[in-house]
């Protein structure tokens, strides 16, 4: 038995990041799924959901890019630990905006650490880098367009 992120949360995240009226279609890339986001004929970007293990529970997050492959925003969809979860705050997540796969994303340099939440910070940063790299690679190979 498996559980994805609640569909309502993904929908809300897409709406928040791309604005109301964004239409989403799923594109399969190998075993992965990318959400293509458009409004009418105009492409707004792409989004993908990833999971990374925090201390022991997975953290489910969404990475969205714009048509020029820059990171539009990150959302923490499900944080399962009973406390902590500071990685979900906008003030921390906004550091990722505008980054591209070639930008350096190092904790303690480009990405601020959160005192006492080292594991989540490293896990989410690594996860975002990975998903951003995947999306960029698929864009360049034409797997998503």
């Amino acid at each position, binding site marked *: *038995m*498996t*559980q*994805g*992120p609640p*569909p309502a949360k*993904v*929908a809300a995240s*897409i709406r928040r990041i791309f604005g109301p*009226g964004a*239409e*989403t*279609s*799923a594109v*399969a890339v190998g075993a*992965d*799924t990318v*959400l293509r986001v458009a409004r009418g004929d105009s492409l707004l970007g792409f989004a*993908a*959901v*990833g*999971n990374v*293990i925090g*201390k*022991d*529970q*997975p953290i*489910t997050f969404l990475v969205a890019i714009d048509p020029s492959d820059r990171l539009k925003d990150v959302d923490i969809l499900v944080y*399962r630990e*009973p*406390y*902590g*979860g*500071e990685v979900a*705050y*906008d*003030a*921390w997540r906004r550091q990722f905006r505008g980054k591209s796969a070639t930008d350096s994303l190092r*904790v*303690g340099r480009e990405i*601020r*650490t*959160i*005192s*006492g*939440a*080292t594991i989540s*910070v*490293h896990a989410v940063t690594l996860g975002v880098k990975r998903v951003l790299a995947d999306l960029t690679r698929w864009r360049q190979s034409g797997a998503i367009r």
Partner: protein
Amino acid sequence: MLRAAACLTLLAINAVPAVAQESTTVGGYGEIHYTNPRGRNTPAEVNLRRFVVYLAHTFNDRVAFRSELELEDAKVEGGSPGGEVALEQAFLDYRVADAITVRTGLVLPPVGIINETHEPPAFNGVDRPAFDHDVIPTTWREIGVGVVGRLPVADGWNYRLYLVNGLRADGFSGADGIRGGRQEGREASFANPSLTGRLEWVRPAGGLRVGGSFWYGGTTAGDTLLGTGSFAAPIALLSADVRYDRGALAVRAVVATVSVSDAASINALYGSTVGRRIGGGYLEGAYEILRHVRAFVRHERYDTQIEVPTGTPRDRGFARRITTLGLSYKPTWNTVFKGDYTVLRTAAGTGQGETLRLGVGYQF
């Protein structure tokens, strides 16, 4: 059209990757130390200080189990001293709501920084601060039930509140304060339920975490000579801590005060010398001088006999000032090579010393 788009969205979203619902996580942490006290006839020692296996299981979205099984000093052998096999944590979490998780089992009182966050890559210095041994008795764990979660009032607020078994006054001492009073989940007396908790705030953008903690409870363990009633011979502990990170700089500080109001009767009954008031703190600054290399300095000041009751001799050797200078090299965020030099001074001038330590630590 709008409905079609929404429908499409739902279909698309159901196709995103999923997380296994029931899952087991294995992890661990450990540290190996080299300790060389300065002076003649004080040979160095090497020790596999801690080897800890972390085992957790998620049953479903609401229920999870977490545990840490620890082996100290590499080996435990019948009839010979040293070494310890112990459970450091073992509890079941039940999430009732986003803000409320009920936690039941062997839990860590959420006091100070090190007790809850004690993995070697998470602190500077080969050994934990001595303050986190003599004043806050880490690794402190007791059995009980409580609630933990995020306070929904505003971003960044977390809390924990537990009802646990009490400490035992017959274990208190002048040198180590309340440390010997811990019961650690082994056939623990529940004659004196105690309350412990913590409120903390994290700056949403990162870089700052501030916390306040307390412990309150009786300590008779059923010994009526010390008093009757759940809160007889109480100890009260208050603590505050701060962690600040900015670029290459990391600062942390902890203060704590413990009052043992019936220290006079405890000492008379058990022939001990516990202080009526115990307390102190430390301040630590670290700076990343090279990539992955941190230099740090920590200054601790504490006294396990700030006040003693009439009739108890006060040993000024328990008023300690400890300065530690060191380096940490972290090739990855969860592995560390450490080296430091510690200078211990006391108000009496007794029991002083200087020690060189080297160590490695990991967590995964």
